[in-house]
């Protein structure tokens, strides 16, 4: 898949753990792990909005298209 998720880098920059983010956005740790490891097939706008809100970032900071 050509879309990669930079969740790890954003969490590091914000000094936030995955567990803390999962509590803030109301997602399970398992689902956030799926997103972080690039195994997710799709992301809901509501999830994207919650993550961007909590990490104070734009969707483009989280998702990146890689030309394979």
């Amino acid at each position: 898949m050509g879309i990669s998720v930079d969740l790890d880098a954003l969490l590091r920059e914000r000094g936030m753990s995955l567990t803390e983010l999962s509590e803030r956005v109301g997602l399970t740790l398992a689902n956030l792990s799926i997103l972080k490891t690039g195994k997710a097939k799709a992301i809901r706008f509501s999830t994207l909005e919650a993550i961007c809100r909590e990490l104070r970032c734009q969707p483009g900071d989280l998702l990146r298209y890689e030309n394979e």
Partner: protein
Amino acid sequence: MSGDLPAPPRRVATAMLLAIRIVRVLLVVASVVLIFAATSLVLRGLPLPSWMKVSGPLTDGMMLTFASLGLLEVVALYCLLGLLGEVIATVRAGDPFQSRNADRVQAIGWWMVVIQGVDMAKTILALSGVSHEDMTSDKTISVTGLGAIVVVFILAWVFRIGARMREELDQVV
């Protein structure tokens, strides 16, 4: 994506599983009886109980054929019910939409083909006059059975697509 089944449907599923278990035990008993009948016909030495004997022009070979067909039908039904029980167990666990259930429903369809095949063989024997009215009274080929097989295969197909959609949904965050 699995969820707990509410108590009443769970009780129904449990009752169905119990009923299936009882019927499977009865089928084992039936298969033992059929094996005994077939063995006694082959060996000729073993006496058949009076309720297993049929009067009329049936030869031992015909009776052996019917006993073999009956045994095949019983085995098919036993396997079919086992698969059905496994499907119901997943319903009770609240997680029925999985690809393994699609495989199970498809296997149920194939066992139904076997049962229908045996039924047709018995009908053909009845139509050709080699059977006795004590052995079979049905001399028509069941269209309902054939229709049911088609429905089961279509359901297996739908199940497979549904399970794939659910697997994809599990990867939506």
